[in-house]
């Protein structure tokens, strides 16, 4: 019966193209949106993941980096350094601001790092230096390209003209980028001489970051210490919380379009073969045999649609970065499982109505329906 389903499906090429294409586009909507958000998530947590820190220390109850403000006193760094298991502490300043080139303003997170910082700086450099000195800045390569900036050019950050001495990679997302300046410049420009934003802590070899983080919270007042993994998790949660409603709505729309297309094509396909199903019943096929045909047809169409949609998504995710945009699409295994499951539900639901139709078929129609 599976062969019959396969042949039925491929006999009408137009119907096949409509059903597979429709489902593919609907699933593409879900897959691509997931991939966009996964890309945004990955870019937003990129600095945390590549900071080199095992533990992030912030002001008490500040759980994430973006859209948050953390202020720690100077002495906090010394106190944290004294906690057992801590190898090194790197303070950083952080603020959301702009990179200004002429009249053009590019939203950016500005990181102020010590001139001799072992970590906390850009992790991939396209050209130039990887640490900024006084009067210098390292900006994202995409932003530089978009604004026509080259090494040695000046950009305005925090109201001051700084020379671009390095171009970094993977430091831009759909909405903003990261720029690195020296801690001294940051303090002068912002007037934050006695405070810092975060502490990047490296633990000693063999120490558990989670245990050391717990020790820091126990021994140093008014701070929150999280492992890098937890801190990145909190960051992702912020993105998810902000986008859940949108993703849910778009997913639902994609699901409903896929279901509508599939249900309509499977229904019309069954309707057009009503007489053939009736004849099979007359010859002795059981309803279950015929349900198999309809279900297999729906499943085959949806599977083809799924892989077609996935192929388009992968192609788009490959193409988009080549167009010089800051958008990155990442197809995650979780997204594949989600869309795969949605596809199965679409196949099952779309087969319901045709199955009811077949169940009600009178096999005697083969003698009557001339």
């Amino acid at each position, binding site marked *: 019966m599976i062969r019959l389903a396969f042949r039925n499906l*491929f006999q009408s090429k137009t119907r096949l193209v409509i059903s597979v294409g429709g489902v593919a586009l609907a699933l593409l909507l879900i897959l691509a949106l997931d991939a966009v958000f996964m890309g945004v998530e990955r870019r937003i947590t990129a600095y945390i993941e590549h900071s080199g820190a095992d533990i992030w220390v912030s002001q008490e109850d500040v759980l994430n980096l973006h859209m948050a403000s953390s202020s720690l006193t100077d002495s906090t760094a010394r106190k944290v350094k004294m906690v057992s298991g801590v190898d090194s502490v790197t303070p950083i300043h952080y603020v959301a601001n702009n990179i200004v080139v002429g009249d053009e303003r590019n939203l950016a997170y500005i990181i102020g790092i010590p001139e001799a910082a072992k970590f906390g700086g850009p992790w991939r450099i396209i050209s130039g230096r990887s640490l900024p000195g006084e009067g210098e800045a390292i900006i994202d390569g995409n932003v530089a390209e978009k604004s026509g900036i080259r090494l040695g050019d000046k950009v305005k950050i925090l109201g001051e003209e700084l020379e671009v001495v390095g171009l970094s990679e993977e430091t831009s997302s759909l909405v903003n980028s990261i720029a690195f300046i020296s801690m001294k410049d940051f303090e002068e420009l912002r007037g934050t001489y006695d405070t810092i934003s975060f502490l990047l802590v490296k633990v000693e070899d063999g120490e558990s970051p989670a245990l050391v983080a717990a020790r820091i919270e126990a021994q140093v007042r008014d701070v929150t210490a999280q492992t890098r993994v937890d801190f990145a998790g909190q960051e992702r949660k912020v993105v998810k919380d902000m986008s859940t409603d949108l993703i849910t709505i778009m997913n639902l729309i994609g699901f409903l379009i896929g279901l509508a297309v599939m249900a309509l094509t499977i229904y019309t396909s069954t309707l057009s073969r009503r007489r053939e199903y009736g004849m099979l019943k*007359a010859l*002795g*096929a059981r309803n279950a045999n015929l349900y198999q045909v309809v279900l297999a047809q729906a499943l085959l169409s949806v599977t083809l649609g799924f892989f077609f949609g996935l192929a388009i998504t992968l192609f788009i995710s490959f193409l988009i970065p080549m167009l010089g945009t800051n958008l990155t699409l990442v197809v995650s295994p979780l997204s594949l499982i989600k869309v795969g499951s949605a596809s199965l539900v679409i196949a099952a639901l779309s087969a319901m109505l045709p199955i009811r139709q077949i169940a009600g078929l009178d096999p005697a129609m*083969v*003698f009557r329906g001339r």
Partner: protein
Amino acid sequence: MTSSSNGTTLQIAHVSKKYGSGSTEVTAVHDVSLSVYPGEIVLIMGPSGSGKTTLLSMLGVLLKPTEGEIHLNSTTISALAESQLPDIRLKQFGFIFQDFNLLSALTALENVAIVTELAGTKSGEARRKAASLLTELGLGERLHFLPEKLSGGEKQRVAIARALVNDPSLILADEPTANLDSKIGHEIMRLLRHIAKEQGRSVVIVSHDQRIKDIADRVLWLEDGEFKETVTMAIDPVCGMSVEREKAVSVDWQGQTYYFCAQGCRDEFLNTSK
């Protein structure tokens, strides 16, 4: 092939079918009885609306009679539960339809194989069986053709192969020659006769086609849901024509009755037999 203890393949006793109830009740078939023997071809004729389709549907257990019983090879099939009927239809009946009713997406081979697969035969064996039957019916070169690429006669032969593939004892044919030209119609009739006479299967045909009388052993006339007239057919031993016994010229010769289309054939028979 099996048959019941009284030697019949199919026996229907006082079968009626009524539709609706009260003032809207319509009797499609009324108190019909019939026995069909192995190797016998029974042709049921009658005007449109006479109840032929209803009767055929009941014979094929596609429709339950309101009254009466239908026995197939000593099983009372009219009393079987709905869940048992698909198996009976698959294994005991072969159906042949006026418009062939082949699955348009499957090849000739697959159209036949699918029916025996439904009966539980493994795919490879089903395909071998189907190929052998189709080759026997002269379609060896057409195994992998879709129905749309076959002529009317070829389609009907595929349908006949499909009807035979599960080795049924009874073939039910609904207007098997209606969509065929005269030559192909004759071919199909010969094939049906072969199925009955050489393979010992019972064949019940519902048709308007007078030519089928030539191969029938009995012709029943159904009108207003009842059998009005029964004609028993015989073959003229001289010219080979099919003749109605009741109207034919006959002669008893050495303890047997012979039937002729005309006096001339009778005289020729007697002259050559002396």
